């Protein structure tokens, strides 16, 4: 076992892990952060996405030991005080049903909007390619993000 220290949602957290534990499992099972979801476990579905040093990554393909001394943000960190405008838009546009894909998509798009506050539909599609949603057909997700992009909210 190794002790690692992660800046998780703006709070330093220390935890003992095996080398072979994934970041996803440690976040969910040892640190109690449940928004990253375990979907395909091979990087295809995007449900386990977290922001690592500000960039969306697949936490199912990262070892917890690799995250030692790095910054991790999950949806819990985005909405510590109140929901972000993007989260509000997801509610307004009914952009999720089961909710399994929503944390990953919200994190990916949060990063996109930081780099590019007014993305086109094409740029939005590119940023969430690799995030599978089986409920919505994606249209309400695009609508919510486009509303933010156009500054409606």
């Amino acid at each position: 076992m190794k002790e690692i220290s992660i800046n998780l949602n703006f709070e330093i957290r220390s935890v003992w892990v095996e080398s072979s534990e994934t970041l996803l499992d440690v976040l969910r099972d040892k640190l109690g952060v449940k928004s990253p979801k375990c979907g395909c476990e091979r990087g295809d579905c995007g449900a386990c996405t977290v922001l690592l040093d500000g960039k969306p990554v697949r936490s199912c393909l990262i070892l917890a030991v690799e995250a030692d001394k790095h910054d991790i943000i999950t949806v819990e960190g985005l909405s510590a005080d109140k929901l972000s405008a993007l989260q509000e838009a997801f509610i307004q546009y009914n952009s999720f049903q089961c909710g399994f894909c929503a944390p990953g998509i919200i994190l990916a798009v949060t990063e996109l909007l930081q780099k590019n506050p007014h993305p086109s539909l094409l740029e939005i599609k590119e940023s969430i390619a690799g995030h599978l949603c089986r409920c919505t057909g994606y249209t309400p997700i695009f609508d919510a993000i486009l509303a933010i992009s156009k500054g409606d909210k």
Partner: protein
Amino acid sequence: MALAHDFDYARPQSMAEVLDLLNTHRDKAKILAGGTDLIVSIKEAMMAPELLIDIKEIPDLGQIHREGEQIVIGAGVTFTQLLEDPLIKSHFPMLWDAAATVASTGIRNRATLAGNICSAVPSLDSAPALLCYEATVHCESKSGLRQIPIHEWFLAPRKTLLQPDELLSKIEMPIPPRNSTGIYLKLGRYNGEDLAQAGWGIWLDTENHYRIAHCALAPIPKRAPEIEALLNGNALSDALIERAAALVESAIKPITDIRSSREYRVHISRVMLKRGLLAARARLQGEEVEPKALLGGFA
């Protein structure tokens, strides 16, 4: 829950440490950069290393820089870094196109170019560009440095010239002449995390020199010398493009797999080569070309 297979993890701070570890552990050790292939392989029990050597804290390996007339891409450089580098976009458009088609943003933020060619699956998107830009692969070990031309690198699916005690430390490419350009066309079934059903890289210059390479269409990615020989010295014309397309079937050895049939791969390759040649010429003439739009665009 940990991965079923247990291993040790090292995060060395210098090249010397990496090479020492590799020399001691050899094929029991695996280099960990992005991990997007490696962790999947361990999860699926295709590999069972005893030690993972994380190279992400070795500063030089994370850099793209220019050395004279060469560009040097370190082993830790991710596809996102390639996409954000102005030198790649302006001088190596085919590599930029390829990087943009690799999986999804979340994967590109971790996955490395070096890892892509070490995994060496037949469909690897970066290979046609590296073959057309005539890259050199640098492999370091305690016994020294080997510089391997990319066209010798791939041996078979998932097999390369890399030895167990070696680290692929960097990939070097000569800066192409100003009067040349390239394009990479990838056919996948959907955007985000799909492997290529077929990939074609096309390079040309204003003096009618051509370089053509493909992936996912043979056991290893390859140049197509017979097509290059037909094209070289000739300006593109409808008749020439038809003759080039007629050579496609003999230039590739596709298989039928879960992603497409052999027959479809042959058919679509003719289409891709024709559209790719015209698109590369358009790019050479200064037009903006979006490769994804050439094959049906976004789903």
